[in-house]
């Protein structure tokens, strides 16, 4: 009896579904909770605005405040991405070389913070970098400096904090690429007389380039929209785009302006994403 039912159920046609169809629930979710709210937000801002919305947009995008914040956002994101690359590359490389024990150890060090609340992590940095923080106390104790360095509430703090938070994304992206580089290519290079550094420069590094490009774009996109870390670790001058948007929504209640700024951030992100799609092989990353 049960057998007969089961046979009927698994029979051809009944549950056959193209795997592409599985994306529809996700698309529906994004439509309801992301695209519609944003669209509604834009439309409402435009309708509520008394006067010429287009003129307002033009005025916003040419205002000195906007230009300063936009440049700051672009510049800080760039610095953060470069530092994250510099820190992530050796970590990812050592991951490809290490035994299972050290591999697990490094992965834990990289991943566990990733699962910890970003606010907790940012506050931890404040303990380390503050004027009475560990680094300053140590440097004064050793006698390198007399007065504490300003490592917090300025751009230094923002860059350090954001680099740390975004590091795992870069490490994992790079690792995925590096792991796919055939070890025998490096052996072959050595057997032909090349020094380890030469092999790295001419073989390993060029082959890790796709990982660098995709990691760079992912981290840059994330950095450009960052809010918590710059808000907590930055100074009054270190206003990034996301903070400006938050201020306009919650403090000055200027929703049309906030909407215009979000539009800018979204467009920048989409442009970078377009680069990402063009220069990284999506099929390869999906393992096809």
């Amino acid at each position: 009896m049960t057998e007969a039912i089961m046979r009927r159920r698994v029979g051809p046609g009944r549950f056959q579904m193209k795997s592409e169809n599985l994306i529809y629930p996700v698309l529906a979710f994004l439509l309801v909770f992301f695209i519609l709210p944003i669209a509604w937000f834009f439309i409402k801002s435009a309708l509520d605005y008394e006067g010429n919305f287009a003129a307002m947009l033009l005025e916003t995008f040419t205002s000195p405040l906007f230009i300063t914040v936009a440049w700051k956002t672009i510049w800080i994101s760039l610095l953060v991405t470069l530092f994250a690359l510099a820190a992530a590359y050796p970590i990812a490389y050592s991951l490809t070389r290490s035994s299972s024990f050290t591999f697990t150890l490094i992965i834990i060090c990289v991943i566990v913070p990733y699962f910890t609340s970003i606010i907790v992590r940012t506050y931890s940095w404040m303990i380390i970098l503050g004027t009475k923080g560990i680094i300053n106390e140590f440097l004064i104790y050793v006698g390198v400096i007399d007065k504490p360095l300003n490592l917090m509430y300025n751009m230094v703090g923002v860059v350090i904090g954001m680099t740390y938070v975004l590091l795992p994304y870069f490490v994992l992206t790079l690792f995925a690429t590096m792991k796919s580089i055939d070890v025998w290519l490096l052996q072959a290079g050595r057997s032909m007389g090349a020094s380890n550094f030469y092999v790295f420069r001419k073989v390993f590094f060029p082959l890790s380039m796709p990982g660098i490009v995709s990691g760079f774009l992912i981290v840059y996109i994330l950095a450009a929209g960052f809010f918590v870390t710059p808000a907590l670790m930055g100074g009054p001058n270190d206003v990034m785009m996301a903070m400006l948007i938050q201020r306009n929504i919650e403090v000055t209640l200027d929703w049309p302006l906030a909407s215009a700024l979000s539009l800018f951030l979204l467009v920048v992100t989409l442009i970078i994403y377009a680069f990402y799609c063009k220069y990284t092989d999506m099929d390869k990353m999906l393992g096809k």
Partner: protein
Amino acid sequence: MVAEFVNRRGSIRFRNITKKYGDLTVVDGIDLDIKPGEFFSLLGPSGSGKTTTLMMLAGFAVPDAGQIMLDDRDISRLSPQERNLGMVFQNYALFPHMSVLENVMFPLKVRKFSSKDCLERAQWAIDLVRLSKFSKRLPKELSGGQQQRVALARAVVFHPEVVLMDEPLGALDKNLRYQMQMEIKELQRKLNMTVVFVTHDQEEAMNMSDRIAIMNNGRIEQLGAPKEVYESPRNVFAAGFLGEANILDFEDLHANFRRHMGLNPGECLFIRPERVVLAASSEVPADRPRLGGEVLNVSFLGNIVRYQIQLSETVRIYADSTNLSDAQAFSVGDRVSVGWKRPEDIRIIHHD
């Protein structure tokens, strides 16, 4: 005349080379002397230690004991960079981001040749493997055989005295393999280089090598020219690994026959299928030592016909006869007697 061109460099000597991984002895104290300009094959099943032996020669593995000499230089503990050997890897190991030309120029650039020199020498090597038309292509745009030839050009472009090859033809189909075997052999003769070739394919080893070392369990079972090893294997393993072999254990044979052959306990008789001569039972001269049996199976393999003969309940042997019109044909169920032409066709060998 030919002797004048013989390269005096490129000799390799292994002395008591041992390699262990944990408790497992992978290579067990082997001694080897490879002559300059020789095509030398290490042949064995997987796990026999042939690849590890090659890796120790290349410098990717360090021996736990023993000495490897390249001419008068002890290279046992040198890094791969310092050994100046050419190498062709199992999966070619071509640099995927470099064109054919760039791949072949790699060892030259490492050696800091001028860019003009690099280009000329690389062109020479690419011409040698007949890939001039493809020098701008990336490896992935080439067929398997072409990739193989790029790997070959890259290995010989800097004129190493010794070129190592680790199962380089394993990924190619059968026809292409044979063609590449001939090309590699021709290249080796033309450039007069020593080649150490690792393979598990016995036909490949016989076709290409001046000498073969048959390896098993980290030891060399037998070493010699292909014909010599094929015709007089030292033990059952060597007999079975190189070519097809009929092995008849002492216990398998009738007492009269044992006595006639002078076979002692622990020994066996060995005869190649193509040396087995079949005759219809009645035709056999009475003075010949004889084994009799029944045809169990006939396989037509194109150039040969392979008979499977049941000698007794547990003992079967193979007999190959060339597919010539004048050869006598048998069919399943025929009674035949089994013999051989010359006394040296059948040998007494030991289990190890």
